[in-house]
């Protein structure tokens, strides 16, 4: 019973703000766990800064959030398109089958050693958590990792005492599924001018790819799909979407979730912010909010360092060795690249080939659908891949073979999702451009948009 109560609390905690952002009952329910995760993260940051109680900070942040919602809900707002009950069922139902992996026992190594250990010391309050984050005995646990996934579990454990691992597993899984579901919504939005069935199929295809290279992590208590799906969803809405800054709340939420979920997200989050700034360079006054997630993610890294949090992976020797030509560092390069290739080589080569063919023959159809340039996605993928290579070659504090074997499948999820999103957008351009002559003239065929316009006219 406790795990189900935890899920209800996770949805209920973030639901008011999620509804304010989306003005859709079902999309708000899908988004609410991510809002709860960000809320719990802010409570952890406040608690650590003041050495206060986590329960008190969680209550304060929740009440502040609900007051904000009560104030802002009085203003009229239009519902987001592409979130009818049929859309939401299309996003959620196909995820049900792979989500059944949550029935596996909660015994994944990193779930215990990282995310639930952090959650346990967060529950004990600010002074206790600050001590443990800076303690050498916990460097194995990467105490510098951002707090979102652990904060959500700590919130559940605060309300439902007993440190149930099943509760922790379900909360983490709900966060992952929420991010994957909102990623599906993002794909549906950017392909919204295509026929609805095709656009929904595209959304589900990209969402299901989240189980590709590391299927055991989605429901195992890990957070790799959480930040990867959130990042790719934000990238889709901000870089492929038409007028991305007209309704920026959902993509900014996704970008914030990515920045507060894992260290390796910071480079791609920074990439997205830079690329959005470049894309919207004629609209710079409205771009600044995309830098807020960058500041939050970077701010957490600096804050954690001031508390003494360090990871056993990062070593000054490896970093210096990169610039002094240290053979021990450079010998790590070929196996790292080989491991990356072995995970996603066929997928990436195929997606690049599809992109090149698409660029040659489908540009007009893509433009007519209002889908932004594919180069944005590949720029993020290249920057992220480069950051991964940097981390693996400079992490001389751990054996490379072990490090690659225990993590490469998980850290490749964002590359996999970006490649799938690229290929799917070209596939939609090909099919929609061939089947629907209206698309050539850029006319939307989405009934949601019609109802939205009608609603605006009425209200």
């Amino acid at each position, binding site marked *: 019973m406790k795990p189900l109560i935890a899920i209800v609390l996770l949805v209920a905690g973030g639901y008011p703000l999620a509804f304010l952002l989306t003005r859709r009952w079902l999309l708000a329910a899908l988004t609410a766990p991510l809002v709860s995760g960000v809320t719990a993260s802010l409570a952890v940051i406040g608690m650590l800064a003041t050495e206060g109680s986590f329960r008190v900070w969680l209550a304060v942040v929740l009440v502040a959030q609900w007051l904000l919602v009560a104030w802002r809900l009085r203003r009229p707002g239009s519902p987001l398109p592409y979130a009818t009950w049929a859309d939401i069922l299309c996003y959620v139902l196909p995820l049900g089958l792979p989500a059944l992996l949550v029935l596996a026992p909660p015994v994944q190594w990193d779930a215990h050693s990282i995310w639930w*250990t952090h959650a346990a010391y967060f529950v004990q309050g600010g002074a206790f958590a600050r001590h443990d984050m800076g303690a050498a*005995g916990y460097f194995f646990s990467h105490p510098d990792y951002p707090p979102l996934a652990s904060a959500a579990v700590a919130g559940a454990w605060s309300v439902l005492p007993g440190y149930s691992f099943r509760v922790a597993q379900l909360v983490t899984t709900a966060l992952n599924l929420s991010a994957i579901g909102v990623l599906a919504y993002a794909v549906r939005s950017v392909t919204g001018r295509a026929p609805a069935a095709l656009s929904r199929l595209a959304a589900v295809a990209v969402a299901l790819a989240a189980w590709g290279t590391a299927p055991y992590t989605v429901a195992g208590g890990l957070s790799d799909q959480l930040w990867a799906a959130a990042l790719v969803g934000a990238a889709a809405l901000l870089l492929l979407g038409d007028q991305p800054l007209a309704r920026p709340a959902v993509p900014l939420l996704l970008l914030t979730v990515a920045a507060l979920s894992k260290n390796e997200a910071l480079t791609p989050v920074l990439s997205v912010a830079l690329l959005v700034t470049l894309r919207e360079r004629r609209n710079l006054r409205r771009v600044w909010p995309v830098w807020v997630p960058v500041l939050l993610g970077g701010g957490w890294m600096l804050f954690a360092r001031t508390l003494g949090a360090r990871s056993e992976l990062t070593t000054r020797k490896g970093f210096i060795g990169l610039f002094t030509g240290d053979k021990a560092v450079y010998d790590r390069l070929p196996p790292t690249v080989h491991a990356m290739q072995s995970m996603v080589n066929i997928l990436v080569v195929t997606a690049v080939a599809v992109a090149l063919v698409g660029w040659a023959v489908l540009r007009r159809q893509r433009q007519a659908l209002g889908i932004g340039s594919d180069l944005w996605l590949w720029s993020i993928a290249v920057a992220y891949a480069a950051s991964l290579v940097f981390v693996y070659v400079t992490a001389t504090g751990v054996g490379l073979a072990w490090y690659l074997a225990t993590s490469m499948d998980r850290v490749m999820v964002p590359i996999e999702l970006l490649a799938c999103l690229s290929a799917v957008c070209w596939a939609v351009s090909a099919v929609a451009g061939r089947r629907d002559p209206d698309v050539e003239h850029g006319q939307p065929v989405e009934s949601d948009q019609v109802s939205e316009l009608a609603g605006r006219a009425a209200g």
Partner: protein
Amino acid sequence: LDKAEFDLMREQLHDQVPPDHSIYMDVRDDWSGLWTQRIGEFAAMSRLHVVADRADADYVVSLGRDPSAPMGVRIVAEAAR
């Protein structure tokens, strides 16, 4: 360790060391880090701090042989001073 074994080991530590004390882990030959990491996790749940120096500890935690226990061992905590 399966879920039941996780819970059992956690209770063993919780039952032997009262909250707000510090423990030193005297776990030898832990090449995989299994016990170091699990006891570290269970310590946070029991509101115990893990210290790196035995002299700073209130309790020393080690693994005792017990053929009937998970993986043949049980958590043993003894007062350090």
